[in-house]
C-alpha cells in the first residue's frame, strides 16, 4: 500500500496562503518559522546525519547575517547577491574553523565549536567601526521588491508579506538542495560516519574530510538563514552569534526529532508558535521552554516526529521508515 501524501508540497502551498489571510501577525510568525526552520535543518545535517554535536552553530548564522546586512546597507549590493555572499562567507569561516574542529571528537569538538563562536561573537561585539559593536546594525533595508507590483495578485501586499514570499521561495530551494544532499551518496556516507566512524575509516572513507564538508555545507545554509533573518528582523545584533543562540536550533531539532529530515522544521514551527502563545500570557518564556525541554529529554527523546512515527507504528503494527537507513550501505559497498 503506497498511498503517499505529498506533504512537502501541501505544506509549501499552505504557507503560500498565509499572507492572503491579511494578518500582519500571521505573516510575521510564518516568516520567522520558515527562516529558523532552515537554521535548525542546517544544524541537523551535523547533529542528526553526521553525529557531530556542535555548540557554536550561531557563529555561521551571525556571519551570514552581518555579511548580508553590511553588503546591502553600506554598499548597496542587490539582495540576491548579498544573500549568497552571506552564505559564502559563513561557509568560508566554517571551512577555516571546521578544519580545526574535525580533528577533535565528542566533547572537545563541541567545546572548540563553542570557542570559535565566542570569538565571532566577541568580534561582532567589539568591532565598532564595522559591525556597530554592541548596538549592532539597525535599519537593514528590505530588498527591492517593486518588481512584484507588476505581478498580478501580489501587487497589493505589504512589504512584509512580499518579503515572506521571497523568503519562502528561497528557503524552499535550500530545503530541496539539503534534501538532495542528504539523499545523495555523500549524505549516505555521512550517516555511515555517524553510525560507526571507525568502520567508515576502515573501508577507506576519509572521515575528517567528509565531516569538514558537512560542516561547511551546514555553515553555508546557516549563513543563508542568518542573512534572511537579519533582513526580517530589520537589524543584526551581536546576540546572533552568542552561545545561547546556538542552543536554539539544538532545542528545535530535539523538539522536532533529529532522526528525521523534517524534524527540525517541525520543531522550529512548534517552538515559535508555542513561544507566541506563552509570551502573550507571561514574560517567563525561558522557564516554560526549560520545562518543555526537560519533559522532552525524559519522556520523548525522539521529538514530535519520532513520537508520531512511533505511535503510527503501534497503531498499524507495521514498520514505518526508520530514521536510520534500513539497508546497510557499508556492507553493500564493501
Amino acid at each position, binding site marked *: 500500500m503506497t498511498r503517499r501524501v505529498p506533504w512537502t508540497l501541501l505544506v509549501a502551498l499552505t504557507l503560500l496562503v498565509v499572507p492572503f489571510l491579511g494578518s500582519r501577525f500571521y505573516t510575521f510568525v510564518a516568516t520567522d518559522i520558515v527562516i529558523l526552520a532552515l537554521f535548525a535543518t542546517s544544524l541537523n545535517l551535523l*547533529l542528526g546525519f553526521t553525529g557531530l*554535536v556542535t*555548540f557554536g552553530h550561531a557563529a555561521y548564522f551571525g556571519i551570514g547575517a552581518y555579511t548580508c546586512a553590511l553588503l546591502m546597507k553600506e554598499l548597496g549590493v542587490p539582495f540576491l547577491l548579498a544573500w549568497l555572499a552571506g552564505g559564502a562567507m559563513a561557509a568560508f569561516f566554517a571551512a577555516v574553523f571546521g578544519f*580545526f574542529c574535525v*580533528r*577533535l571528537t*565528542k*566533547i*572537545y569538538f*563541541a*567545546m*572548540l565549536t*563553542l*570557542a*570559535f563562536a*565566542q*570569538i565571532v561573537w*566577541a*568580534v561582532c*561585539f*567589539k568591532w565598532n567601526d564595522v559591525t556597530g559593536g554592541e548596538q549592532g546594525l539597525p535599519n537593514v533595508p528590505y530588498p527591492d521588491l517593486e518588481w512584484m507590483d507588476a505581478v498580478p495578485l501580489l501587487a497589493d501586499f505589504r512589504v512584509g508579506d512580499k518579503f515572506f514570499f521571497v523568503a519562502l521561495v528561497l528557503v524552499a530551494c535550500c530545503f530541496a538542495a539539503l534534501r538532495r544532499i542528504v539523499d545523495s551518496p555523500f549524505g549516505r556516507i555521512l550517516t555511515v560516519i555517524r553510525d560507526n566512524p571507525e568502520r567508515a575509516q576502515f573501508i577507506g572513507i576519509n572521515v575528517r574530510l567528509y565531516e569538514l564538508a558537512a560542516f561547511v555545507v551546514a555553515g553555508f545554509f546557516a549563513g543563508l538563514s542568518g542573512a534572511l533573518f537579519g533582513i526580517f528582523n530589520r537589524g543584526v545584533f551581536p546576540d546572533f552569534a552568542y*552561545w*545561547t543562540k546556538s*542552543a536554539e536550533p*539544538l*532545542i528545535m531539532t*530535539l523538539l522536532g526529532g533529529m532522526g528525521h529530515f523534517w524534524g527540525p522544521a517541525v520543531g522550529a514551527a512548534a517552538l515559535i508558535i508555542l513561544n507566541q502563545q506563552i509570551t502573550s500570557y507571561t514574560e*517567563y518564556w*525561558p*522557564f516554560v*521552554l*526549560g*520545562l518543555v*525541554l*526537560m519533559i522532552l*529529554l*525524559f519522556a520523548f*527523546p525522539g521529538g514530535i516526529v519520532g513520537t508520531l512515527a512511533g505511535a503510527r507504528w503501534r497503531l498499524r503494527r507495521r514498520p514505518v521508515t526508520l530514521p536510520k537507513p534500513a539497508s546497510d550501505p557499508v556492507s553493500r559497498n564493501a
Partner: protein
Amino acid sequence: MEPSFLFGQFLGGLTAAMFLFLIASGLSLIFGVLRVLNFAHGSFYMLGAYLAWQIVRWVGPEGEGFWLAALGAALGVAILGAAIERLLLRHLYRREELYQLLFTYALVLVLADVAKVTWGTGQLSVSRPPSLSGSLQLLGITVPHYNLFIILLGPTIALVFWLLLQRTAIGRVVRAAALDREMLSALGANVGWIYTGMFFVGSFLAGLGGALVTPTQSIVPGMDVAVIVDAFIVVVIGGLGSFWGTFLGALIFGQVLAFGILVFPGFSIFAVSALMATILVVRPWGLLGRPIR
C-alpha cells in the same frame, strides 16, 4: 607605564583568577568524575550570589553576618545541586552527551527565571564584611583587604582539595571513579553516591564563588550565562578534569584579561576565546590534562 600600575593590573588579574578558580574547579571536578559538562554551573554561581544577598538581608548588614551568608548560600546551592543530580540528571547518564548537555541548559533557563521571579531584575549589592573593609598600601597601590583575602583563599582551597583527593580514603575513591567507574563499582563502591557527592561539592564551590563575589560585583540577571563561558575557557586551558590545570588556567585567564586590555584595548574578551581555541587546537586535553579515551 608605571611599575605600580602594572602591579595593580597584576593584582586585579589575580583576584579575578581566584574567583574564576572557585567556580571552574567545581565544574572541573564534576566533569572529571561524571563526564558531564554542566552548563547550569553558572546558574548555581548566580544562585549563590542571590542567596548570600538574601541571608545578609535577614541577619542584617552590620556585624559579620556576611560569613554566615556565604556559607549558608554555598550549602543551599550544594543541596540543590545534589538534589538535581539525584532526582533528574542521573536518569540521563545512559543517553548521549547531547541529552545531558541540553538538560543542564534547560536548568539554566529555568533557574534564570526562578531568580528573576524571586529577586527581580534590578541590581543588588552586598557590602564587604567589616573585618575586611579596610585596605592596605602595597608598592604604591591601594589593595582592599577583601581582595587580599580572596587571593589567599584561592590557593588555600586548592591545597585543601588536593590533599583531600591525594591523601584521604574518600579522595582515593573519587580518583578511582574518574578513572574507571565500572571497575570501582565492581569492587563494591557505591558509585551513585559518589556522583551525588561530587555534584554536592562542585555546586558548593559554585555557590561559594557566587556568594564571595557579591562584595566586589553587583548581582544582575545574566551573570549566569556570562560566567559559564569564562569557566569553560579556564577549564579547557588547564585541561578538562585536571585540578591543578584549572588553577593554572584561572591564573592565565586572569592575567590575559588584565594585560590584554593594555595590548589590545577592547579585545580582551576576544583574546581569552582565542586562547581557548588555540589550546584546543594544539593540545585538546589542556596544559596539564591527560588525553582521555
